[in-house]
């Protein structure tokens, strides 16, 4: 069902991308003209921003709802008791499940990432730098272990349904923070910088850093820093789908620590949990 629905999404996205890049197929379009190269890049940026905006949702929900019933859900169903009576340590079981969820999520992320890049390249003729693509993919896929760690920790405390609701709300908080940062990142001069709003948005991003990672991914993929002089106002054109304030390396380090802490906390909680 996941494969079918993903294919449906990509099919719809194909036609959307086709329409966005319609001007590239006009007879007057000169593909080798420098202005046309910029035009192709801009179209590709819009297609990729749109694709990864929804793709990030899809990947996040794949990671969350795969792991949402990992502990309490399986305990309620009765599939866990006979397994944990075997001579294995609880952390081994927990880590094994974590690895399983993460591997399946990363494989899905790879397929989705490749498909989105393929659609954009097909319609715009854009070429990708392998190093840039690799960096962007690592960032895109790193959301999976982060979300799986937090979700599995939640599954030690809540039922599958409650955990799903909590994780959806938490992801939404992070996404809202990211959206505010995007909006604040363009169209406002210094007098409208709204420090209180930036602080709130920042705290929301810290509460769930997944969206921040995705914005950094997009910034890397679109080479935002490198092309800012060539493609002026790119982020404006992307609007709320853009990058806004690019999350820093320190933010990425925080996100890594966040995910690792959630994993270790989950192992600790599970070791002492009554089943």
């Amino acid at each position, binding site marked *: 069902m996941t494969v079918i629905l993903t294919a449906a999404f990509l099919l719809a996205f194909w036609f959307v991308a086709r329409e966005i890049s319609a001007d590239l197929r006009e007879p007057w379009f000169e593909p080798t003209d420098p202005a046309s190269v910029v035009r192709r890049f801009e179209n590709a940026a819009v297609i990729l921003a749109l694709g990864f905006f929804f793709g990030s949702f899809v990947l996040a929900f794949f990671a969350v709802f795969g792991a949402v019933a990992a502990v309490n859900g399986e305990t309620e169903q009765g599939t866990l*008791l*006979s*397994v944990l*009576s075997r*001579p294995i340590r609880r952390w081994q079981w927990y880590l094994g499940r974590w690895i399983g969820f993460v591997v399946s999520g990363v494989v899905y992320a790879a397929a989705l990432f490749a498909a989105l890049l393929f659609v954009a390249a097909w319609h715009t003729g854009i070429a990708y730098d392998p190093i840039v693509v690799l960096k962007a993919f690592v960032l895109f896929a790193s959301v999976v272990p982060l979300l799986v760690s937090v979700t599995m920790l939640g599954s030690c405390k809540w039922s599958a349904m409650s955990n799903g609701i909590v994780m959806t709300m938490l992801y939404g908080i992070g996404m809202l923070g990211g959206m505010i940062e995007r909006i604040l990142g363009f169209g406002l001069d210094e007098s409208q910088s709204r420090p209180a709003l930036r602080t709130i948005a920042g705290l929301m991003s810290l509460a769930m850093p997944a969206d921040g990672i995705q914005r950094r991914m997009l910034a890397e993929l679109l080479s935002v820093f490198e092309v800012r002089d060539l493609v002026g106002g790119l982020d404006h054109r992307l609007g709320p789908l853009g990058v806004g304030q690019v999350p820093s390396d320190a933010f990425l380090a925080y996100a890594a620590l966040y995910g690792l802490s959630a994993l270790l906390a989950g192992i600790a909680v599970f070791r*002492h949990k*009554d*089943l």
Partner: protein
Amino acid sequence: MSVAAVETVRLSKDYGDGRGCRDVTLRVERGEAFGLLGPNGAGKSTFVKMLVGLIRPTGGRASLFGFPAGSLEARRRIGYLPELFRFPEWLTGEEVLRYHARLCGLEGDRARSRIERLLEEVGIGRRGRDRIRHYSKGMQQRLGLACAMLGDPDLLILDEPASALDPVGRHEVRQILRRLSGQGKTIFLNSHLLEDVEWLCDRVALLHRGEIVAEGALAEMLREKKRRYLRVAGFSSFLLDWLQEESGVSVRIAVDRPSPDGESVWLEAEAENDERIGRLHYLIVEHGMTLYESVPVSERLDEWFLKIVSGTRTPG
């Protein structure tokens, strides 16, 4: 004293709302078949889960073969069948057993042959290749039993092993457990099916409201007083009072027990000890009656259970 298969000392789990179990002290020797009885909510499953390491006690201690309950060493020696369990529906029976075999450290040909044998033994056979979603509850129960037996454990802890089985299945499970007991395996049985406990177990304990209220050899538990049926010829009902007075034994005519020849009658006698029974025999013969049979009677386990739980009988 040899190391016991199961030993608990004041083992407790307090949930703060009256549930759980308190100060449970038990000892189950190696090779014994032990039955844990109790009404719903008595704390039996809580106690069993503490032995297996799924629940942490709030007091006391427990050990299996000298190793702390829940430790890796203890869990290497046990096979556990939970009361409420399920297997992933997309797996086949064989796949479930292969997975559990790896968790037990069984691999390769050893695992393969053991799995094949167990599937036959529990009555699943070739249906081991079908997915669990196509199994009845009874078949899942059989698979659970096979899973528990997979690592050839020294101690089998079975929580309601025969639930969901039809009478044929229950008979087969009893046979399997009896055979395992004969091989020297220790069996710890938690069951509502009192006839299974009565049939298999050497010793029992009764858990009621979280505490052990009775424990001991089954035969002794069921025989609080000496009861006997006596088939007597030449008896007259006028003699009842006299017999009771002279012997000190409670005697009544067993109207629910028909006489095989139409001339003798069955008497039911209940006495404190064998001496009084002997005196009763003497008086019957001395008075010119003929004593054809004197048969000892054991109380049924369910009668004993209900009496203790309802408080109408003092635990033996």
